[in-house]
């Protein structure tokens, strides 16, 4: 059942929140051992929260738009008194003394948190294989990855553990696993959702966003978590956009551009089946009344390179605080400096270390201009290219990921092939624009394919209109 349906049933008293949560906890108990979507299942806390929703319904109070709906949280979102690990040993034992803004807003909306989901350590990865606590498996084929870094959240929704989940997307970490698991995933406009309480990877790129099985549920969740937050200086001073009310408006008259550079012909590695589904999606939008054309956004091809300078640079600074002094892991040594080194050596995994080194190098005296400075210029070019494209088009279209879900272990040996998974998603992070992945058919291997819709800043309503059309067309195909 959809989140919308569950909330309606709970709000009307037709179903108790406890029964809804119980049912999902039962699904988790049976499916979780082989999928491993969660770092932590919060069964007791979830039931207590469900009882509180039921009390509010019984008392005639408004229990909120997500009353009784189970939600899974990526384990880099701070939860008061509940372990928040980022799937890293270095945060072992740390209990945040506060809730992230999105966690507070979920509670206010009546949602029930059922657990903290697995991720690539500190959200660095595209397969959830970089977790210190083991890999998450794709519920549709247990030999394959769920994508990443929010693989646990995507898998939880795909497996029916929760109808909704939150992830974070720095270079595609919501959209790519959504595509690989066959669910809807949204990266909102930078600043549309507060980052307060999201453990930072790359601050200028990170955004929290929803996973859901339907476009409508994703809209419902984004409405609940979005809107201005004074605790985040980069938060847009606007209320959350209304999305659920625009879903049935269709795409009649919309101009949609298919990004040439990210759709196969110009780009190595986009699989034929993915390219075919994209073409069918474009046709579906065309048939629904949109004008669909191929267009060029040339600098997007440099996005990946710029991203792998900017994101590690910011990460090298953001992750400096894990030094063993105040919280988390400490490996003792004779003096403070050696203790820092020993702690970080033991606490971080290989990918995190790789990116800290990349970023430290890129910011070093004498290299800054050549790497960080140049990458920021590329970023500006991408913003300008998008701006030009959006003079002609309302939305842009391209694949979410180059391929369907790949086998566990296939790409772990070569970081570069892993990084290429994000080639289509990264430009939106660099530009700060919204983008979402909508399932659209399957590949030759029977695994889901995601189509990505891109919009200019604050363009979520139009983006969701097109997503609803694609969803309807895709489910029929």
């Amino acid at each position, binding site marked *: 059942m959809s989140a919308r349906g569950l909330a309606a049933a709970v709000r009307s008293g037709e179903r108790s929140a406890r029964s809804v949560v119980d049912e999902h906890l039962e699904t988790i108990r049976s499916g979780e051992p082989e999928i491993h979507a969660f770092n932590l299942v919060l069964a007791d806390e979830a039931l207590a929260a469900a009882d509180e929703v039921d009390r509010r319904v019984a008392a005639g109070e408004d229990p909120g738009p997500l009353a009784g709906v189970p939600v899974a949280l990526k384990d880099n979102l701070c939860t008061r008194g509940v372990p928040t690990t980022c799937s890293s040993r270095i945060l072992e034992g740390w209990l945040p003394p506060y809730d992230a803004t999105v966690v507070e807003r979920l509670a206010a909306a009546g949602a029930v948190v059922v657990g903290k989901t697995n991720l690539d350590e500190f959200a660095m990865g595209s397969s959830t294989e970089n977790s210190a606590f083991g890999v998450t498996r794709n519920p549709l084929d247990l030999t394959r990855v769920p994508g990443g870094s929010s693989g646990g959240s995507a898998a939880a929704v795909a497996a029916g553990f929760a109808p909704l989940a939150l992830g974070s997307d720095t270079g595609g970490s919501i959209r790519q696993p959504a595509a690989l698991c066959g669910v809807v995933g949204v990266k909102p406009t930078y600043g549309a959702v507060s980052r307060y309480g999201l453990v930072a990877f790359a601050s200028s790129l990170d955004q929290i966003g929803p996973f859901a099985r339907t476009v409508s549920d994703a809209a419902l969740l984004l409405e609940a978590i979005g809107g201005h937050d004074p*605790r985040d200086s980069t938060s847009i001073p606007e209320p959350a956009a209304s999305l659920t009310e625009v879903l049935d408006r269709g795409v009649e008259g919309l101009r949609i551009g298919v990004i040439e550079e990210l759709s196969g012909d110009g780009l190595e590695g986009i699989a034929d089946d993915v390219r075919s589904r994209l073409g069918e999606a474009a046709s579906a939008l065309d048939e629904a009344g949109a004008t669909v054309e191929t267009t060029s956004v040339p600098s997007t091809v440099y996005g990946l390179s710029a991203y792998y300078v900017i994101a590690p640079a910011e990460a090298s600074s953001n992750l400096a605080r894990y030094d063993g002094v105040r919280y988390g892991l400490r490996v003792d040594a004779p003096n403070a400096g050696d203790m820092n080194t020993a702690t970080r050596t033991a606490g971080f995994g290989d990918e995190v270390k790789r990116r800290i080194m990349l970023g430290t190098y890129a910011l070093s005296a004498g290299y*800054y201009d050549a790497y960080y400075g140049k990458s920021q210029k590329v970023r500006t070019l991408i913003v300008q290219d998008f701006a030009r494209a959006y003079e002609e088009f309302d939305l842009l279209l391209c694949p979410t990921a180059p391929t369907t879900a790949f086998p566990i272990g296939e790409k772990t040996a070569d970081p570069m092939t892993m990084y290429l998974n994000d080639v289509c998603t990264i430009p939106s992070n660099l530009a700060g624009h919204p983008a979402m992945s909508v399932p659209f058919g399957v590949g030759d291997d029977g695994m889901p394919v995601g189509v990505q819709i891109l919009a200019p800043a604050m363009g979520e309503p139009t983006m969701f209109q097109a997503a609803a059309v694609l969803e309807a067309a895709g489910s029929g195909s």
Partner: protein
Amino acid sequence: MNAEATAPEVVPGWETVIGLEVHAELATATKLFSSAPNRFGGQPNTNVDPVSLGLPGSLPVLNEQAVELAIRVGLALNCQVQRSVFARKNYFYPDMPKDFQISQYDLPINGEGWLELPDGRRVGIERAHLEEDTGKSTHVGGGGRIHEAGYSLVDYNRAGVPLIEIVGAPDLRSAEEARSYVGELRAILVAIGASDGKMEEGSMRVDCNVSVRPVGQAEFGTRCEIKNINSLRSLGRAIGYEARRQVDLITAGERVEQQTRHWNEDEGRTHKLRSKEEAYDYRYFPEPDLVPVAPSDEWIDAIRAALPMLPRERRLRLAEAASVDTEAAALTVERGLDDLAVDAIAEGAAGPRVLVHAENNLADGAGRLDAASFAALVKMETGGDLTATQAKTVLSTLVADGGDPAIVATDLGFEAMEIGEMEALVDRLIAEHPDDWAAFTSGDEQERKKKSGFFVGQVMKATSGQADGRAVNEILARRAGA
């Protein structure tokens, strides 16, 4: 700057060049990026919150009051107040919660400006930027240094307290000038309410760049930065030591290495902390969690309009009122007595006498003395109704108890001696001491001075110190000339 003219040389033939970096804690209610209180003291780790502890997921939000105080500092130092960007300064240290400091780098809130010393000379200000303070470490065992310590304790109460870092140009040429600069800067910061300026509590800290060069050489020598200077006295001592050390090196045929050095107050010397090669690479980059600060012209104008009178303006005002130069007005302004002095002068008191009293007799403040009675007292003194000694005594009564100086003088038995009465006394003393009188009238300048002192002393003795020494000398001169 034309500081060369008067700077004393530590070693003959050598000139000391000094540039100071002053960190002052801004007197805000809360920290620079969070609502944790900005309060000195308190139990360790109580004035903290997730942001000032740099906990994962926390984000900085800029304190508007800190920006306003920083702009006040900029305006008071005649700086260009401009759009600014925060940057991260990355280095590992246990008392820095995030292992980076949020500071400003290439775009500081205040650009170039200047500060005028009490003697009227101007010192360049290169910039004055906002940044957050660190916590405080206590290293236990191993002589109190981090690398040898048995363990270290960290108190994050100070972490995130707003600082303004004021970078002065290398325009100072002596320890005295450096002390004068810091004193003036402190007076400005206190006057505008930006900081309490307490060096002993660490709310104002001075790092000092020192180099030396042969007098007449245009290029600067290689500089060393001295840290851990905790008082104005240390500042002067450290500069003197460091300048001599550098001159000794050069005269011995060695080179000065660019270093950061630590001042040891007990030993009275500096020692090397690290060389230029060992300096940190701070890997500055723009702080992505904050947006640029772009204060509007309206806001800056409003802050400017609300600025109180600055020490420099107070010196100018008093100097003009008292018809003296600004340097002569400096001490009275420094003591905070200039409002009183200006008002007393406006009531007709002689400016120079007012300043003499302010400098010599009101070191501990004016107490209950008001401008009207101060003026009345000075007028009695200059009118010959009170001697300088009597005026001083009356003044101390007015400071302690207030009141009318005429009544106080009467109560103290201070009556001006009739001039005829005084002449009769002098004539009697001349008759009683003929040898001394002869020596006075026929002796050389020195002898005459000595004997005038003798006769004034005798008059004072006879009048219990109530006579006016100048009047006595005038009578003696008249008698000798007759």
